[in-house]
């Protein structure tokens, strides 16, 4: 068997994609599959928390206790039914609102001759760059009432309009604020689909004698239907699983959705039940993705992308132009400009609901510790805690951006080179799996898993490394996708020609693959930076005073009702995100190399 072994080894050595496959399978097993199995295992065994409830329970013994309690007990209503219905109701409301706004904007920007398209389009997608819960913070600033803790918001204190509870907290504000975040997402998807429709198709309908409304209903609508369906499903699952906004606007009135319910349970150490709920969320997300894939699969033939001979004939708005311009401007002022101004203003006000000039102060930015004001917290610029959090956030963003971009590219290389094999499909699927894991449950698992040395990894409990690790894993779905598409764009012969010239793999990777995927690599890096610095639910359980991040800091200040610090730190976070965005634009503007036209 010796020559056979030698044969296998020498082949393996010259096949980096196989070595990488093995490596990824090992690493992914540790970081994705084992945690998931542990989650399932936990739901089937007694946990320490359960011993108080069930005297004869033995910790670690097999049981269906958690499933019984979540699915069939008098707690089912409170644990499962209510949060689930709330989540579905939130998801549905948010999606409808986002779809309406997104479709209107998509139509305006793709199909009409609205002026300043570039500018409006950039501004309109801003809400998508910032964390979704920032809009919730602004909502609180405006619509808080003084019945449920805290002080009155701007509307009540300045205009004297009493705000009913349903408008201050709970379902309605959650739907509105999330809708104002996710519309940008549906807008991007729908306008992408609209752009692929050749207006000749519509003109052909018109020539054939169809009325304008008929053209819209019989031609345009069916053509964008797959994109509409797919953005509906994706927006629904994402808004249903979001944590920050329901936590800020729901928890004060005990309005629980699945993620906040999971959070509450984990906080009270009831991980068994929490993980059952997490599995419910995972099942929902996976179902939605399967439906989406099916829909795209069925309708794929509808996509009329042709590349050439494409003509989009913008509709003349004529006399409606001022009306639509006004609508856009008012929307932007209400949703972006005014909230930002008020957010800034609120950090310069001493007593929260008093907007008179003599109440103005710079204390919250540059003041020293004063035990009378906000529990003696120093101003933001002087506050070591905040500065450390800022440093930590940036460090987290940079490390995960760099590592995710590299790992993503390597995954892309492995998947594309092994294309069509089971290995490639497995790696691609497993790298995508973290997408469906609810952040808090995922963090709870990691917390348990890495509290002792695990395999070759030392105990990471309370370390910054653990935060970096989990953020990187959670980013894998995105970075592997962009890595795959980056490698797919490089024709295989470009690497093969280097192979035949005897150039070894590392050199090929460094001199050919990396430079050719550069622009995708950098923009992927910056996007990862942004998602990492705005991460909340994933890291909230893992931070310690030393590893505090801006997002968790904001959340902590929020629970202490230190409004100025909440808003001030949020502004710092927004500033970092905006700088990163400007960088993305600069990078994507100068993608230098044209690939050779391959006949």
């Amino acid at each position, binding site marked *: 068997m010796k020559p056979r072994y030698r044969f296998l080894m020498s082949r393996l050595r*010259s096949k980096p994609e196989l070595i990488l496959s093995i490596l990824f399978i090992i690493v992914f097993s540790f970081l994705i599959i084992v945690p998931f199995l542990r989650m399932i295992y936990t739901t089937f065994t007694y946990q320490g928390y359960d011993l108080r409830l069930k005297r004869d329970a033995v910790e670690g013994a097999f049981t269906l206790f958690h499933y019984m309690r979540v699915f069939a007990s008098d707690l089912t209503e409170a644990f499962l039914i209510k949060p689930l219905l709330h989540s579905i109701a939130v998801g549905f409301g948010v999606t409808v609102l986002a779809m309406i706004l997104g479709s209107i904007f998509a139509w305006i920007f793709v199909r009409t001759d609205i002026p300043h398209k570039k500018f409006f389009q950039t501004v309109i997608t801003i809400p998508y760059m910032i964390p979704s819960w920032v809009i919730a913070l602004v909502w609180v600033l405006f619509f808080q009432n003084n019945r449920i803790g805290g002080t009155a918001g701007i509307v009540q204190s300045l205009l004297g309009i009493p705000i009913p509870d349903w408008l201050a907290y709970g379902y309605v504000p959650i739907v509105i604020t999330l809708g104002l975040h996710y519309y940008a997402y549906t807008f991007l998807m729908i306008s992408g689909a609209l752009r692929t429709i050749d207006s000749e198709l519509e003109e052909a309908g018109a020539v054939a004698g169809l009325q304008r409304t008929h053209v819209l209903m019989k031609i345009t609508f069916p053509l964008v239907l797959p994109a509409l369906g797919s953005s509906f499903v994706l927006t629904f699952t994402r808004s249903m699983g979001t944590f920050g906004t329901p936590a800020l606007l729901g928890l004060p009135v005990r309005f629980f959705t699945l993620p906040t319910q999971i959070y509450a349970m984990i906080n009270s150490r009831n991980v068994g039940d929490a993980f059952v709920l997490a599995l419910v969320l995972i099942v929902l997300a996976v179902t939605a993705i399967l439906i989406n894939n099916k829909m795209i699969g069925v309708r794929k033939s509808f996509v009329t992308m042709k590349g050439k001979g494409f003509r989009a004939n913008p509709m003349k708005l004529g006399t409606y132009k001022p009306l639509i311009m006004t609508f856009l401007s008012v929307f932007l002022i209400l949703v972006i400009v005014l909230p930002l101004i008020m957010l800034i203003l609120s950090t310069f006000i001493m007593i929260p609901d008093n907007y008179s000039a003599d109440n103005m102060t710079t204390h919250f930015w540059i003041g020293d510790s004063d035990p009378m004001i906000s529990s003696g917290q120093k101003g933001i610029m002087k506050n070591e805690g905040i500065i450390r959090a800022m440093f930590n956030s940036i460090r987290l963003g940079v490390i995960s951006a760099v590592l995710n971009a590299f790992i993503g590219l390597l995954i892309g290389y492995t998947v594309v080179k092994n294309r069509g094999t089971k290995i490639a499909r497995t790696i691609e699927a497993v790298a995508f799996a973290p997408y469906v894991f609810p952040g808090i449950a995922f963090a709870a698992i990691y917390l348990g898993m890495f509290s002792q040395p695990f395999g070759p990894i030392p105990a990471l409990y309370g370390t910054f490394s653990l935060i970096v690790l989990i953020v990187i894993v959670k980013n894998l779905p995105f970075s592997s996708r962009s890595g795959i598409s980056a490698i797919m764009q490089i*024709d295989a012969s*470009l690497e093969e020609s*280097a*192979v*035949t010239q005897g150039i070894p793999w590392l050199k090929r990777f460094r*001199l050919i693959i990396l430079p050719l995927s550069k622009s995708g690599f950098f923009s992927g890096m910056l996007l990862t930076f942004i998602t990492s610095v705005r991460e909340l639910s994933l890291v909230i359980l893992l931070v310690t005073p030393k590893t505090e991040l801006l997002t968790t800091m904001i959340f902590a200040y929020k629970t202490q009702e230190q409004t100025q610090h909440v808003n001030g730190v949020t502004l710092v976070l927004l500033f970092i995100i905006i700088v990163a965005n400007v960088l993305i634009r600069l990078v994507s503007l100068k993608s230098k*190399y044209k690939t050779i036209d391959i006949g």
Partner: protein
Amino acid sequence: MNAITLQNVTKNFGEVTAVDRLDLEIREGEFLTLLGPSGCGKTTTLRMIAGLEDPNDGEISTKDRILYSKAKGVYIPPEQREMGFMFQSYALWPHMNVSKNISLGLETKKLSREEVNSRVHNVLDQVQMKGYETRYPSELSGGQQQRVALARMIASETGIFLMDEPLSNLDALLRVDMRSELKHLHQTLGATTVYVTHDQMEALTLSDRIVVMNKGRIMQFDTPAEIYHRPKNLFVAKFVGSPPINLISGYIKKRDASKVFLENKDISIDVSSSATALSLADGTEVILAIRPENIRIGSPVQGKPSVPGTVYAVLPSGSETIITARRGESEMRVKVSGFVEYVIDDEIHLEFDSNSILFFDSTTEELITH
């Protein structure tokens, strides 16, 4: 001396057998072409020689070493096979200029800076691309990119060149130019060249020997003249030659010992002057094949193979004219030199050159020899 030997090489892609138990001996210094329709396994064969694809079975070796043998447990990775490879898409690195494209591989070979520079200089000279050193691929025309790719391959001085349809992305005029360049280069450098193409004209003009492949197997392995004049089977006969060879199906009708006719319901051709025809038994189902240039338009001559037909189309192209004539369900093309006019629907008489007539067995599709 064989430069490259393939023994019993098989390659499967899932259920599909791309190359089926292939044996091939490539002589040192020859220009060998793998010719066949797309999907016949020619590119796969070339890529297996280069190591870009691994066979499922068999052995590949060069004159001094085994490159691949599962049975003997030998595997030389493509990086160490010392073969030049030219891709259909040229595969120039778009982010490197011309001279870097050529020198990158040389630098890996640990050659001195001067050696690398002088080689880059020399090969660019050879392919007439001097002065383009600092250009990027996107700033070159298709033909220039082609020359750079060629230069890159020559520069490695490997002694074996593998080329995968290198001319197929060029326009027709440039292709003819490059053919003579390639032939000239091969004669100057004397490198063993394995060339893949689906263009039979390219194969005939360039090669010392041609391997015609179909469905992963060798249909014929011979010199261009043999391939063209004595195709071993119907596949090769049909695949090589433009316009394609004329085929007339029928059966042998023996009038007496020296009078033999090929007949079908429309045609009766006196093939007594063909020795092959005389050796065939009465009633044998055969296919008569004759190349368009071996037919003359004239008047019937007793004892010579000929057939009347109606002019269907006349396609003059300057140096030659192709006339399509019909007789019942049979269609025949005739190639005559010069610019010739015929009137559609006129009756003409087609006279076959008896020495050029071939017969193929209707069932086995093999050439019948006597």
